[in-house]
């Protein structure tokens, strides 16, 4: 039946249905469809409530946040569809954040948590196997290394997080088939766990012996923050390549509060394009000082587009600055960096929640379509890997917040300021990566190229960026 009613009352009815539905989802209601929300509606419901909740958390209205959390929990579940799972992990992160207001409670609840490092490593391996992203990254990295090291007789590779031997086995195999023969290869692997490095050493030396490549593996057991570049023992005369896969962003973790206090906010230090030129030509040490100081606002070179007109502000990070400078000091011939293509380094919670929602929605979608729902491995990856990342992004602040993903444009700025020049990734790398996807039947993934850098995308949304850099002298 159709009734003509004023437009003002249009909106009331749907809401009313909705309210009925959510107030009594399980009770037999006159409206049977209430029982089962279509997944789409449920998804939207979850999104809305997540944002509502995040807003409440950001404004510290805890009661409202609590209500929102309760509503979300009606439909969120780690076993459901992608949106349900995302909601589950996001609510956990938000709750964790709220709980930190009561440090005693928070500590008590976490006191019996058994942090298993083996579990973490296992989960990373699972991620490597289940999703093609890491494989693609390794492939592209190795291809770039091969090309850069053409003709080199002594090659030294530094792996900033050496946990997957497959990456270097691949490279060993490629190197053994070089026309000029394999070089003398040294790989320095950095990891926090000695056992992981031992395993890597074993596998790699075994492979190198099979292929008859003079090979050496140097393990370095330490975290990236505490890394002493001297311990890398880079020798003169050897060509150095550095591989960093999803590691650099953790160095951006700084004590935000202190930063804010030490420097007055706002764009008092904005540089216009002239200054930018000067900055780029500054000596390396001065740049390091710049990096260690306050916010650097840099206008991107193309003032035409609307987005470019807004300043690309780089959060100053002394750790990052000094680390990059140290790496620069080693004069690497090549440095390949893979990072998540997402802006998770905002200082505002809502900003991060929104970005995280977008990024992890794509990630969970990717898992959803690649792996069946019942898969325990998938759940583990979601919980132990992404769930932890989400928790870190949302619930942690300051130095503890290590998952500070940044988009490639920002990384480019940082690297350029630190004295690195871009190296274009070759088309053959793209071809190989494409073939890998085809051969595994990974559908929905694709690789985009832009300015010589690759973006590993899921359904047109860039998830990871792979870029290559080299040591550049200032003239």
């Amino acid at each position, binding site marked *: 039946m159709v009734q003509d009613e004023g437009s003002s009352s249009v909106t009331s009815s749907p*809401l009313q249905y909705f309210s009925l539905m959510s107030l009594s989802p399980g009770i037999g209601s006159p409206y049977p469809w209430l029982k089962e929300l279509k997944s789409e509606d449920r998804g939207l*419901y979850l999104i809305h409530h997540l944002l509502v909740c995040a807003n409440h958390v950001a404004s510290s209205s805890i009661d409202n946040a609590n209500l929102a959390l309760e509503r979300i929990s009606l439909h969120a579940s780690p076993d459901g569809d992608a949106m349900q799972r995302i909601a589950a992990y996001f609510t956990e992160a938000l709750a964790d954040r709220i709980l930190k207001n009561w440090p005693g409670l928070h500590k008590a609840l976490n006191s019996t948590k058994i942090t298993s490092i083996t579990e973490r490593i296992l989960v990373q391996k699972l991620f490597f196997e289940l999703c093609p992203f890491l494989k693609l990254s390794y492939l592209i990295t190795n291809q770039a290394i091969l090309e850069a090291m053409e003709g080199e007789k002594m090659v030294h590779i530094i792996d900033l997080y050496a946990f997957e031997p497959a990456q270097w086995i691949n490279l060993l195999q490629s190197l053994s088939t070089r026309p000029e023969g394999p070089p003398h290869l040294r790989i320095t692997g950095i990891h926090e766990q000695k056992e992981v490095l031992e395993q890597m050493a074993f596998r790699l030396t075994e492979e190198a012996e099979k292929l008859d490549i003079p090979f050496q593996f140097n393990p370095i057991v330490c975290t990236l923050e505490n890394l002493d570049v001297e311990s890398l023992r880079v020798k003169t005369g050897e060509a150095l390549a550095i591989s960093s896969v999803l590691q650099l962003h953790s160095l951006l973790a700084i004590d935000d509060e202190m930063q804010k206090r030490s420097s007055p906010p706002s764009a008092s230090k904005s540089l216009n394009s002239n200054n930018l030129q000067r900055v780029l030509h500054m000596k390396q040490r001065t740049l390091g000082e710049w990096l260690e100081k306050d916010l650097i606002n840099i206008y991107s070179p193309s003032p035409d587009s609307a987005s470019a007109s807004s300043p690309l502000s780089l959060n100053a990070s002394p750790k990052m600055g000094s680390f990059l400078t140290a790496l620069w000091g080693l004069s690497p011939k090549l440095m390949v960096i893979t990072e998540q293509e997402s802006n998770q380094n905002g200082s505002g919670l809502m900003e991060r929640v929104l970005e995280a929602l977008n990024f992890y929605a794509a990630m969970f979608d990717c898992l959803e379509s690649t792996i069946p729902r019942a898969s325990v491995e998938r759940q583990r990856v979601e919980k132990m890997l992404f769930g932890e990342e989400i928790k870190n992004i949302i619930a942690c602040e300051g130095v503890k917040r290590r998952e500070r993903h940044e988009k490639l444009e920002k990384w480019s700025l940082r690297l350029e300021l630190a004295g690195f020049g871009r190296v274009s990734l070759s088309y053959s790398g793209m071809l190989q990566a494409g073939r890998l996807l085809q051969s595994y039947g990974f559908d929905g993934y694709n690789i985009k190229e832009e300015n010589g850098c690759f973006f590993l995308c899921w359904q047109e949304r860039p998830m990871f960026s792979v870029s290559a850099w080299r040591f550049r002298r200032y003239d």
Partner: protein
Amino acid sequence: MPAEVGNSSPTASGEASVSSSGNQPPPPPPTAKKKRNLPGMPDPDAEVIALSPKTLLATNRFVCEICNKGFQRDQNLQLHRRGHNLPWKLRQRSGKEVKKRVYVCPELTCVHHDPSRALGDLTGIKKHFCRKHGEKKWKCEKCSKKYAVQSDWKAHSKICGTREYKCDCGTLFSRRDSFITHRAFCDALAEESAKAETQPQPQPQPQPYPPDQDPRLTMPSPATEKPDLEPDPKVKISASPPPPPPAAVQPSATVLSSILADPPAAAELPENHPPQVLEEQPVRTNLIGSCSSSSTSSSSNGHTGNSLIAGLFAPSTSSASLHSQQAPAFTDLIRAMAQPDGPSDLGPSPSLEPISLCLSTNHGGSSSLFGGPERRQYAPPPPPPSQPAMSATALLQKAAQMGATATNASLLRGLGIVPSQPSSGAAENIHWASTSMDSENASVASGLGLGLPSDGSSGLKELMMGTPSVFGPSKTTLDFLGLGMAVGGSPNGSLSALITSIGGGLDVAATAAPFGGGDFSGKEMGRRS
């Protein structure tokens, strides 16, 4: 003349000195203090001493008479004799200047036999004699090098195996400087040889691979190598039926080749030949199977690189087993396909791992189950719980379009107004309402104006976000947007209106569905008209 114990050689027997130039030893005055001569030029006024081989080879010439312990120096023996309470006498350095002594090698054929080439050090001459004219009694454990002098042997053992550098020519170096020096010379040789190799071969692509390797490799042949792959994959693909994935595997198993081996037709097909792709659609998974089998076949070529897929990126068995129960039919099919593909070293199981992974992706029968917005399929109502849901990204986009992702002030206001009421965007309600289409409550549905299957108006379609069965398949996934448009012309506007009316929503409960439905449809009707 003071001389060491032993015989003196016929040539230099207590002669005064040795001239640097010739064999005539002029008698010059003794030097004031000890100084080292330049190597190869002994002090002209030094005393030449010739010792017998026995003397030179002898170790521990001084023996204690009591315990028979041997000492190399008399002084040491004397000190030892003290311990036996024997009379001992330490020979002091003689007051007058000690004449510099040089030693000659007793071996006639030796260069150092000539007094003009005498060595200035006793230990030196001993070692020299051992090294050159002695038997090599010490052998290195790691390598096969033999040494006559124990100290040489010790020094070598320390270094042996710790070589750091290896030149192309195979020489090993433990010292960097020597390595680099050598490399400088060796490089020249190596480069020339390399240039000779690569020059005749063109290098079209910027890769270090041999030019004969074509990155557009299509079909790896089983256990055979056909280096003459045509650069044009299309030709190859169209020529070959799906099952035989075999293709030439390039001799050098680089990353490229391994990857190349894996995606034979599958890689090229979708790019180049849609019709062929279509016809092979049902065999798609088989292609993937053939990919894997080709990978195995390529690995059978013995190239380590080709085991890349299996070795490097092979999914874990857990995932394989995980999927195995889900698609046994496919697995068997692929096995069947894999059989004729040729010998595969790895056997079907590892090749199946990627297959099963692929199978899981093809589970739903379409290439991308939960694809992006452009591929959303609406499930027929009522949607069973296991039905593929809209992807999270799509949901977010929808929500964004509705203005929900923005921290809408109106949204908040709405929430603030009615905290007990779950606020939601208009879209959800409308969505949700749209699901009610198929509810038994036809009145509600009709009231909503949604349950009018006959209505094929685009406006309604846009409004009705689901159940294509009722409204026909709607590919316009931007229905939400459409919805928003339909309702208020702007999503935000409608949303705000919606939110603000939340306050009144509760009161409407009593009025129940038809009322609201009527409102909805009324508006719609108005629009349609």
